[in-house]
């Protein structure tokens, strides 16, 4: 597989850091090496937040932020199109966004013909399940559906390990719904 | 420096003093310039000197004493001159002015 690097963009409280961790956990369960870490700074609710997941089939030595991701995941629809999100995204990489828009429309907004785009209306799905816009597990579903980087069931295992009993089922439901409803343009 | 003191190899680690009560071997009386003297006639046995002494050198004795005017006490207070440093707090605090600081003659 080689190296696969993911950068997560959200706002404080949306669960971007947890998404990065769950994806790393799922990758370790799949048999890869993986690390996850937040952008280092003063955390505060509502502020833009970055988190990172590094996956490899070789040991991972680097301890630095990801500058040229293979995929970016946008948890907050208001951030779609922001320069900071696109920064360093590899040609041929994935742009995965929480939005009601079509992937083609998003591709026009970001102005990058050389990247693959996947979209899912994670906010709507999360509101139905949680009555709150907690979109992190939905966005992992979208990432996994688009990239196939880890099997969905390994993410489900990670969710079971990570969350208290009462949050497991709704999160897995949301994960699967997002996985099913992702739309993509390659 | 001092030949008879133990070297680093034989001292307990961390400067721990493992023999309890060894401080009594260190007599601090030679710090004294003035020596407190209790006038048993004036002393009213109020115990304040015993309370105030920072070194615990006031000794309370079950030793009866009768003053010249016939007043009877069951206790007597004396000073342990091995450790009294001569600070004078007892004399300062004594409400009966029964303690005098006199020059130490060695």
């Amino acid at each position, binding site marked *: 597989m080689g190296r696969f690097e993911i950068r997560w963009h959200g706002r404080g409280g949306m669960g971007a850091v947890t998404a*990065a*961790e769950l994806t*790393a*956990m799922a990758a*370790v369960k799949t048999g890869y*090496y*993986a*690390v*996850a*870490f*937040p952008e*280092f*700074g*003063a955390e505060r609710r509502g502020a833009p937040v970055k988190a990172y997941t590094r996956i490899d089939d070789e040991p991972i*030595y*680097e*301890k*630095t*932020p990801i*500058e040229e991701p293979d995929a970016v995941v946008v948890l907050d629809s208001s951030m779609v199109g922001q320069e900071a999100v696109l920064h360093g995204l590899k040609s041929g990489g994935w742009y995965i966004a929480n939005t009601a828009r079509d992937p083609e429309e998003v591709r026009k907004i970001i102005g990058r013909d050389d990247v693959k785009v996947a979209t899912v209306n994670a906010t709507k799905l999360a509101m139905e399940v949680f009555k709150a816009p907690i979109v992190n597990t939905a966005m992992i579903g979208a990432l996994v559906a688009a990239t196939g980087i880890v099997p969905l069931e390994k993410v489900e295992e990670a969710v079971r390990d990570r969350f208290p009993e009462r949050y497991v089922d709704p999160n897995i439901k949301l994960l699967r719904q997002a996985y099913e409803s992702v739309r993509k343009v390659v | *420096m*001092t030949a008879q*003191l*133990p*070297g*680093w190899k034989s*001292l*307990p*680690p*961390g*400067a*721990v*003093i*493992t023999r*309890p*009560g*060894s401080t009594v071997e260190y007599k601090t009386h030679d710090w004294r310039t003035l020596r407190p003297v209790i006038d048993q006639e004036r002393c009213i046995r109020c115990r304040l000197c015993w309370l105030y002494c920072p070194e615990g050198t006031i000794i309370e004795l079950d030793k009866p004493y009768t003053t010249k005017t016939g007043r009877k006490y069951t206790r007597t207070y004396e000073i342990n001159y091995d450790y009294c440093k001569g600070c004078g707090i007892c004399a300062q605090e004594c409400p009966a002015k029964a303690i005098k600081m006199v020059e130490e003659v060695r």
Partner: protein
Amino acid sequence: MAGKKKLPLSGNTAIAYAVKAADVDVISAYPITPQTTIVEKLTEFVANGELDAEVIHVESEHSALSAAVGASAAGARVFTASSSQGIALMYEIMFIASSMRLPIVMAMATRALSAPINIWNDHSDFMAASDTGWVMMMAHTNQEAHDDIILAYKIAEHPDVLLPVITAIDGYFMSHTIEPVEPIEREEALKFIPKKVTWSVLDPDNPVTMGPLGTPEWYYEFKRQQHEAMKKAREVFDEATKEFEKVFGRRYEPVEYFMMDDAEYALVAMGSVAGNVKAYIVKEARKRGIKLGLIRVKLFRPFPAEEIMEVISNLKAVGVIDRALAFGSSYGGPLYGDILSAAYTRGVDTPIVNFVAGLGGRPVTFRDIKAMVDATLALDGKTRKDVPKEPYFIGVRE
């Protein structure tokens, strides 16, 4: 021990799990970023009954370490943790803990010192502690951070050592990064580090005096003892790591060598930046035919001068990466200072150059490492007289 369950743990959580496994009696700490989540996790363990320990809530780091000293003097197995200004505030008591020979273990999530206020990583706090008489280690994976706690109690409580131990990880780069970690269970940890009071303690039945006055006739002898205890700490580190490997299957050396077998040049580094150097060696240097290796210093106090010099003496040129600056010193970075003294006393002539990088959390990128490698290679065929007298300040804006 293969096939054991690995958990995805941050560096801080990995440390908390090890402290729980060590079954500490007292935790005394004050919150400070990026260390906070170590003690946060531990108080969670105590609150839910997984760890039977006394948590002492204090009003400052000065008090945190003072309470740790008191608890250790009473015979408790004690843990504390801090970072940056917290270490600075503990400074006074750090000397007292080491000279009273109390086997306290402190985890440090390294962070820059103010001013300006900076919560990000460098080694200024760690290096400021280098002469406090504590045994000092620095990990570079979360597994190592976890294992170091267990090793730390083994070394600290050894009757020939009886010194407090600092186990450090890089703030954020490790403290907040999730990696797979195989946690040591309490039962196996306590077989390796049985709870036995090996030091003099306050006991009403056997009274002792601790922390007395040490007049000029007495003081020096106790300092000489501390120097000897540090030498013993090295012997015990070697024994402990060997035993650790037998029990847990993971081997730790005072110095880690990476691709050094055929190396002609090396970078010397500590902590997370060593990971970046490893990645650079594999992905860049070796592909360009540069025989570059890494010497990662794990044990910092006592300093493993002998083995580092043995390796360096055979190289063409060496670069030392410091994530701290000793202002006004004759050398530049503190690690470089130790390396240079070791080279002088062992008669090593290899040109050795200093790089100061990554201060206040600035990432040390491949471009930075390339600049260091280029400057190191430029000393090939030169003598130590040709080494720049000032460090290279890598990644700073002019």
